[in-house]
């Protein structure tokens, strides 16, 4: 099943909120990692959860450039779009 942009946004926001014990309503596309006090360890942890959820692999160079929730959503959209046909999300 292909994920819609809205699906991806909602699921990423939920993962980010869960990782910091927040409500999804507290997390927005322009929320920065700094605002959420997401440190490098949190970022690795969150990236793994995102990779698992969408069956993607975030390249190291992309990981370093992620600054906002919106960056993650856009990155996931790109990686999902690049997935071979039939590759399923978990």
């Amino acid at each position, binding site marked *: 099943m292909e994920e819609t942009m809205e699906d991806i946004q909602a699921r990423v926001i939920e993962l980010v909120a869960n*990782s*910091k*014990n927040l409500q999804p309503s507290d997390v927005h596309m322009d929320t920065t990692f700094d605002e959420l006090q997401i*440190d490098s*360890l*949190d970022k*690795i*942890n969150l*990236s*793994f959860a995102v*990779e*698992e959820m969408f069956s993607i692999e975030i390249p190291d160079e992309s990981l370093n450039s992620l600054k906002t929730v919106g960056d993650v959503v856009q990155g996931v959209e790109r990686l999902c779009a690049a997935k071979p046909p039939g590759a399923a999300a978990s």
Partner: protein
Amino acid sequence: MKRVVVTGMGCITPIGNSVSALRDSLYAGRTGIATFDPNFPGALSPDPGLRFRTTALVKDFDPKNPAHHLSSGVIAANDSSAQFGIVSARQAAAESGIVQHYDPSQIAIVTGCACGGRAADEDANRHLYTRNARIHPLAIVRCMSSGGASSISIELGVSGPVFNVATACASATHAIGLAFQMVRAGIAPAAITGGHEAALTFGFLRAWDSMRVVSPTACRPFSADRDGMTLGEGAAMLAIEPLDSALARGARIYAEIVGFGMTADAHHITQPQAEGAAEAMCRALADSNIEDPAPRVGYINAHGTGTPTNDAVEAAAIHLALGARAPHIPVSATKSLTGHSIGATGAIEAIATILALETGSLPHTAGVTTVDPTLNLDVIVNQPRPLSSGKDLALSNSLAFGGLNAVLAFRQYTSDTSRVLGAIP
């Protein structure tokens, strides 16, 4: 040499997630041993084919619950074993106030954890081997047996000597003993010390099952019909500091640690020998520098696993160490309520021993049908028993696989203990 006292305690155990809850269960004889759910995640069959059906699991522990609250980062980086340890250490530190009173850059943290993050390790390997899944990026830190010690230091802002001891079932007793020696010698001004363990995974239970030392029902230490141990989990931590500064700042004093003895059997990887355990008990008493300590021993919290071999060898060791007095010294095994939490068990039993001295009430051994008469021990059964007058010392034994023996000696603290006894040279 400084005299060392316990001024704070904390615990997460199968019979209570605070020292007051543990105390209530201990003296009410409420067991934490119960039938476990055989439907382990990922197990190939709902029936694991184990010879036993009981363990002693921690109940109602929720790291996000305000009472135990751990941040999302701490939860992500720590297996439940370390989480139990962090919350226990926080309880002990909060009660004692040592982190506020002493220089945190000098305070020590010494933990006992034998199995590390066994659940995290097994979880990662199960996914890897069954579906070639990726390993969680925090698997390494979750699996470190020193992860609890590190996280406690981060949580409390304590940056002195911090390390973990892994000596199987004696880990926590070794840890407390080393921390005691450091504070006594002035190497550290105070310490948080104890143990934590949470290893009751499907693989761990299967491995123990293969050794055929786990009771099919529940452990009954020193009972004539004992048939094995019951595996448990949990954590316990002590805050310890010198007596003089505890008195000067008006801290609550639970008990004094007066001695620590350790030996190795140098004999067999699983078969214990009485001589090694006996010598560890003798060394703990000698280490107290109390003149003729043996007549003052009023309680022994035994390692008492409930296996036929351990209890017989430990009884022989008590006889070797204490001679003609041995049959008259009250002995109990609180594993009959808490189960055997491996690396943490010595710390949980240290708290039981301290409570026995503090309250003057010796906890009993649960589940005993008939005390094994061949042991010739005064096993406390059915209900707690008062500490006899004139007795102010207690021992807590830990006898690990591999023949590693560690024994702590505690003294009852009363307001006039320091005045009457003076400084120990």
